């Protein structure tokens, strides 16, 4: 079944596959940092050169009982359960933004612990269930 022509074409194809995989791995290791959509508060803490006046995205959980709302300003703590970051934002927040939910904030870092946000995105997890089910789960947790 494998005539000589088929064999050469097969070899040709396999060699192209290997070359492209090699190149992609090379590209991947060079771009690794840029692919990340956001950094965590601990990564910001570890990083010693904070880029002032440049946009940065930080993701984490909104700490429970930390949301303070004024007339035109909202202030909350973003945490990854190791380090915390205070976020100040003026504007409307997405519907799903609430305590104990994930959020990604985009803004300018003022200090290692203080971020002035330009945009807030809500992040949700992969669990989907009806409200009754959630109630039962909550009661069981107690």
């Amino acid at each position, binding site marked *: 079944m494998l005539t000589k022509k*088929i064999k050469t*074409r*097969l070899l040709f*194809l396999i060699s*192209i*596959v290997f070359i*492209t*995989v090699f190149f*992609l791995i090379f590209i991947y290791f060079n771009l690794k940092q840029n*692919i*990340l*959509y*956001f*950094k*965590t508060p601990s990564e910001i803490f570890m990083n010693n050169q904070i880029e002032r006046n440049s946009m940065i995205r930080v*993701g984490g959980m909104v700490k429970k009982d930390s949301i303070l709302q004024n007339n035109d300003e909202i202030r909350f703590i973003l945490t990854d359960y190791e380090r915390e970051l205070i976020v100040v934002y003026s504007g409307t*927040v*997405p*519907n*799903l*933004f609430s305590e104990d*939910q994930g959020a*990604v904030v985009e803004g300018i870092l003022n200090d290692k612990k203080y971020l002035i946000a330009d*945009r*807030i*995105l*809500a*992040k*949700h*997890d*992969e*669990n*989907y*269930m*009806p*409200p*009754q*089910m*959630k109630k039962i789960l909550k009661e069981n947790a107690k």
Partner: protein
Amino acid sequence: MEFFSFGNIIVYIDKFIKFINSIFFVILIIGISFALIISPVDYLQGDSVRIMYVHVPSAWIGLSIFSLIAVSTMLNFIFKIKNLFLFVKSLAPIGLLFTCLSIVTGSLWGKPTWGTWWAWDARLTSMLVLMLFYVLFILSLKYFKNNENLTKILSFLSILGIINIPIIKYSVEWWSTLHQPASIKFLGTSSIHSSMLIPLFLMLLVLLLYCALIFLMKYKTEIIKIKKRNIKRL
């Protein structure tokens, strides 16, 4: 091999199209009523979770059709099977349609939940790359129609494109993305409640049947085109 001759296969395609036509609307109505009325709302997202019933199946179909056409193109390149070329030619536009559908519904879903239509995170960007590969694939099918290097170009595109498929699948695990991790895994339990899984798989069945219908129609047209050309030559 007699069975696969073009004359025979057209009869079977017609029978198959009639069969799908007879059951399609019943399943469509069942699937839509499950997805829009019977299934419960989500505890967090409310009614907007219903977008999932179109978004997730169409993304799956987009990914699997690309894998299919990439593998068939490479097999066609090695073994020169004419039928596989027709198969690829009629399947590619359907894959593009469903990839676009998943991107559009995803963007409609992203606005009420995340608060943005689009974000350049790994999952969304790799899905956009898949769409571009589909576009390149279909454009080269159209423009290099009479070029003898067509299969070489197509195999090259499919090698590059098929590497993107696992990247799409695992992008949400490898990198931090705005998109949430996969709810349904090959192994292990899914994190979607069973009352929402039923409409999801019903809608998958509906969309798969729709794919099959369009594919068979296009495949039949391609066969008829070839027969017509042969008749002219006689």
